[in-house]
């Protein structure tokens, strides 16, 4: 599983370089994110622009990652595709996560 990270000002920006966040990688994703979160930035951005598919196991892993943050640290999700965003909406988890509307920098997206 590929994750990359960079520090930008007071933010840790983690990019998930996978086309799917699903049952096959959910546990590994949680473990790898916990390693990444050892970097002590108050603000964490998870860039999901590459992710075209999220299932309930992937969603559960994201909840676990958010819960593992110490108080005062904030997780923001960025670059959600329409397919991924719908899973958040159907499960009402869009009201729990901070989801930014930024479009991906490098992605030409399908319209319609």
């Amino acid at each position, binding site marked *: 599983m*590929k994750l*990359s990270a*960079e520090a930008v000002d007071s933010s840790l920006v983690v*990019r998930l*370089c*996978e*086309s*799917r966040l*699903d*049952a*096959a990688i959910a546990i590994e994703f949680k473990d790898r994110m916990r390693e990444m979160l050892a970097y002590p930035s108050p603000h964490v951005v998870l860039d999901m*622009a*590459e992710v*075209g*598919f999220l*299932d*309930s*196991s992937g*969603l*559960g*892993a994201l*909840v*676990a990652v*958010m*819960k593992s943050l110490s108080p005062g640290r904030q997780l923001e999700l960025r670059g959600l595709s*329409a*397919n991924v965003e*719908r*899973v958040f909406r*159907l*499960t*009402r*988890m869009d*009201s*729990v996560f901070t989801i930014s509307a930024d479009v991906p920098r490098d992605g030409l997206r*399908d319209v*319609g």
Partner: protein
Amino acid sequence: MACVMWAEQMSLPKNRSAPQQGRCTGVFQSVFPAEQHAVRKVLHAVMARFAPHISEGEAGALELLLAELMNNIVEHGYAPGRVGSISLSILCDGRGLSCSLIDDGKPLPSRCLHPPGLPDTAVAAESLPEGGFGWFLIHDLARDLRYRREDGQNLLDFRLPLGAPEG
């Protein structure tokens, strides 16, 4: 930082032409090991077969439904250490997709057949649920979900209508 090298592997077919409702016909059938990577492979094959003929929203719903149901079989259907099999058939008749899943694992608990409420999200962050979304999504997206146990096998079928307004 670039992700390009890994991103294309399992993604939906790109640059496909606009969906042409009514052109979706035919059958998909596969029998495969009840194992997560085999589930990924079969989902990829299903998407390659049907996504060009249905809308993006319908394709997303189909993939999510099948993923939830098949991963449930992988995770709960068979005793630890036993790799069983899953049989998937999909028939598209232009108005909808009729899907059927068969496995010979443990019987499906009857509680799974009743639409569950959503886990409570109006709680403190540390109490947020990490599970319980799968069957909610299944009941939300599937129509005519039916289950029966026959000759030691689980038979589950459902329908995904096509051409309905998307929400």
